[in-house]
């Protein structure tokens, strides 16, 4: 048995909501595993289920109308169905989470330092003075200028980028094995985003944390991730190493995503490839492949639900034959198909 078991194993995770209009599936059969110190990027558009997947892993879906099934094992221990007390010992200590808006994690009425100190002392029996010293060190580590004075500042006295750093410092305070980040840079300006991404990359090196980074931005994924999941309408449609997925994406949805992003160098296309239509409403899922109605290559087989398949850790949920997919992709990129 190898000693480094996967840090997190998610199997057949499903999240659905009971509504007046019936059962609405938000996440359907998501499975993946995460190694120690690995950075996993999860990409998808609004409604793809990427955020719900994270919330389910963290046990943060509290709606009485939500049904969460499947399995989430963290270091071999099942998290789904765990009692609140047991979860609290793990959340914040071994698994930390940061959100798009840092103010969801900060209270405006306490200083940054007090909030980090509280976090440390909730999980460890240390004195206030020691905790404060740790808070200053953490703020320094995440690149807050003059951490000795920043520790006594209130959130409103910091800029958006500095607040996000403070939240990351708080998340790191107990040296978590896993950091879950939901669109951590989406609200930030691009020069600040670059600083935060650099910081997230450093977390693995300096703190040894694994990271799950959820984003809508493929550029962000290319920047920091080792491995990538692409989600669409509640399912993983493609999974692969960053190099595999960016060099030879397998799923037509991924092709559309890449074609939708205007390039930063080289010739400018006359038109972007785009993806026609819009994602399905979760309450009105099409039969079979959910991407079918928007897919240029839809065919007979697509009325069934494709499952993830493929070799070498690069898998996609698509019925197109494995051979020749890159040719199809090139025809799409060449604009041979109306968008």
């Amino acid at each position, binding site marked *: 048995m190898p000693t480094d078991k996967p840090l997190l194993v998610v199997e057949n995770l499903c999240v659905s909501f009971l509504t007046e209009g019936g059962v609405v599936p938000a996440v359907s059969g998501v499975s993946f595993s995460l190694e120690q110190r690995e950075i996993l990027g999860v990409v998808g*558009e609004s409604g793809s289920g990427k955020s719900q997947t994270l919330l389910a892993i963290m046990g943060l879906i509290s709606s009485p109308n939500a049904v969460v099934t499947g399995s989430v094992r963290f270091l071999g221990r099942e998290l789904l169905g765990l009692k609140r007390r047991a979860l609290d010992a793990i959340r914040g200590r071994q698994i930390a989470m940061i959100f798009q808006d840092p103010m969801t994690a900060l209270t405006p009425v306490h200083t940054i330092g007090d909030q980090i100190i509280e976090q440390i002392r909730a999980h460890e029996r240390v004195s206030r003075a020691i905790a404060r010293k740790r808070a200053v060190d953490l703020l320094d580590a995440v690149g807050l200028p003059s951490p000795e004075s920043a520790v006594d500042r209130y959130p409103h006295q910091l800029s958006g980028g500095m607040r996000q750093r403070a939240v990351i410092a708080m998340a790191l305070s107990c040296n978590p094995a896993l950091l879950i980040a939901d669109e951590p840079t989406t609200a930030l300006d*691009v*020069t600040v985003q670059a600083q935060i991404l650099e910081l997230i990359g450093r977390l693995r090196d300096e703190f040894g944390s694994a990271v799950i980074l959820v984003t*809508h931005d493929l550029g962000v994924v290319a920047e920091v991730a080792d491995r990538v999941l692409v989600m669409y309408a509640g399912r993983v449609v493609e999974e692969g190493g960053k190099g595999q997925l960016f060099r030879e994406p397998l799923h037509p949805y991924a092709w559309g995503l890449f074609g939708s*992003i205007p390039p*930063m160098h080289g010739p400018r296309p006359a038109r972007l490839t*785009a993806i026609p239509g819009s994602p399905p409403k979760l309450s009105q899922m099409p039969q079979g492949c959910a991407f079918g109605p928007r897919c240029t290559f839809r065919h007979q087989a697509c009325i069934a639900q494709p499952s993830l398949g493929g070799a070498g850790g690069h898998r996609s949920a698509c019925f197109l034959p494995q051979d020749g997919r890159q040719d199809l992709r090139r025809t799409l990129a060449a604009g041979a198909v109306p968008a």
Partner: protein
Amino acid sequence: MTETRPKPLVRTSDLSKHYPVGRSLLQRRIVHAVEQISLDIFPGETLGIVGESGCGKSTLGRCLVRLTEITSGALEFEGLDITKASQRQLRPIRRQMQMVFQDPAASLNPRRRVGDLLADPFRVHEKLSRSEMMDRVEELLVRVELLPEHAQRFPHEFSGGQRQRIGIARALALRPRLIVADEPVSALDVSIQAQIINLLCDLRDEFNLTYVFIAHDLSVVRQFSSRVAVMYMGSIVETGPVDAIFSAPRHHYTIALRSAVPVPDVDNRPGQRIMLKGDLPSPLDPPSGCRFHTRCVAATSVCRQERPVLSLVDKNHFVACHHPSAG
């Protein structure tokens, strides 16, 4: 500017917009949201305005269509000075210049049907019979790739991308010459974003539109613009043809901004990233001299004392910097 170029559609001369902040007179301070911007916008061009939050790009856009009062300087539209024009005087000009906003939901009255919303411009500016009006509305809906029957629906029944199409249809209704689009795609998912960019491109060719395209996303600006102006703390720091700005930027802020964009490509990684230090200084207390000197790699003592002015470095390419990069 060479004399062969046509007359500008819009010209600003030292245009400034200041906002007072603070409650009492004693505490009142001034934010220089837009500072002394001189800009010519030529017919048929798409001017992209980029910059980070708080740089004044949206305020500039609103000034250009007189949605906000101008503090000082002058604004001309087709050679006519409209800096101080009254609402009444502006009315015939308004139909020539329209705006598309970031959040179409906020600019569409939720209690009115889309058909009524789109008929408003005709009610205000043209005397049409009801059936003529409905024909024009349907024509507009079809043009932005919606369906005629969508006129009967309410804004909330549409997706974000469809709502932005409605916002574009409304801006297009009176066949304006100028459209100022303020972050028109930044609230949309990438796949929808691409559809809207394609639509705006098609409309430009079909109706001979001049666009001012305000965005924080550099790749979108590169795709869509013919000329780019980069703003920092209320001023234009660099402006030039889109290819020059992206392949040979001269201002150190432009260089840093461009290098900060994450590129979805694992093989063609951009060169060394220039990491900007610190945050934007407070606009209430802007740095002396060049506003960028506190974060600039090339700053020297002259930058702290003297404000650089835009000067020509290449064909149509202007930079406000004491020590421009070699490009």
